[in-house]
């Protein structure tokens, strides 16, 4: 008859995992529901319950859900890729951005060529017919800025998905 769960709420996934009472006000309870045991298991394996608790206590309550979700994402990425974790994804995305920016430059150059050609056609038309009805071809909307603000913390491009680079620590400059 006497039950250890004298509280109306079931223990959260964290307290279940840690085999402890889930007290009211448990810092984990809102973010680690009992239906998602794997979420806490992953986060605990990579970061540790104590570190997660400290981290959550240091940020505002309305930001904690986002923090937990990003920690869960990172933990999941690290479990799938124990060497690079989500940093591998960052490296891939950075390469993609560089590739696209080159493509943007090339496309812009193509546009400049057309704009130059269009201008000469217009000049000929003006000379022959005395008419310039069109709105200047590609004059508008060509002010592209491929170098929009990029975060300062760009990761070095030494990371390849299957890299065996054996640089030692001590050079983690950012």
């Amino acid at each position, binding site marked *: 008859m006497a039950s250890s769960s004298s509280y109306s709420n079931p223990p959260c996934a964290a307290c279940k995992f840690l085999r402890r009472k889930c007290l009211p006000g448990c810092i984990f309870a809102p973010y680690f529901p009992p239906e998602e045991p794997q979420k806490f298991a992953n986060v605990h394996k990579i970061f540790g319950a104590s570190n997660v608790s400290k981290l959550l206590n240091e940020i505002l309550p309305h930001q904690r859900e986002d923090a937990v979700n990003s920690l869960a994402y990172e933990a999941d990425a*690290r479990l799938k890729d124990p060497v690079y974790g989500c940093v591998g994804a960052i490296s891939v995305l950075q390469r993609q951005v560089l590739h696209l920016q080159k493509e943007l430059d090339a496309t812009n150059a193509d546009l400049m060529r057309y704009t130059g050609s269009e201008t000469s056609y217009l000049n000929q038309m003006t000379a022959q017919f005395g008419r310039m009805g069109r709105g200047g071809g590609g004059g508008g909307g060509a002010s592209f800025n491929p170098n929009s603000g990029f975060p300062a*913390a760009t990761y070095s491009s030494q990371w390849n998905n299957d890299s065996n680079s054996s640089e*030692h620590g001590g050079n983690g400059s950012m």
Partner: protein
Amino acid sequence: MASTRCAACKYLRRRCPSDCIFSLYFPSNNPQRFAYVHKIFGASNVGKMLQDLPVHRRADAADSLYYEAHCRIKDPVYGCVGIINILHQEIHNVQCQIAKIQAEIAFLGTHAQSDQQLQIAPNLDPNFLAEQKGLSNSFDDSSTWFF
């Protein structure tokens, strides 16, 4: 007995054994590196993670752990995920710009084609040519009139 402790053992105030798992990747000249990693992951977790990897992968793992820890300390809410979101947004923005320019090029290309066709008989009466401009398929099957 090591005369110089690695940054980890210095931080943890313990002896640095000759086979210390941290010593190669957390040298004493960069104490912040281990401090960050310890704050986010914990020394015990880092040690386990490194132990579980083959030796030739540990340096990269230590570097990526430091990077993640650094990102998390700078942005306690989103950490590395914040950077991933920014990069996704950047990719999307650049793709949109490329698509926009390509559409513009396609439009200009069509214009140039149609204008070229009008130049075939430069000595004709301009009024006659203006009338011709209103007709479709005058010279070429691919002509498209955007007026």
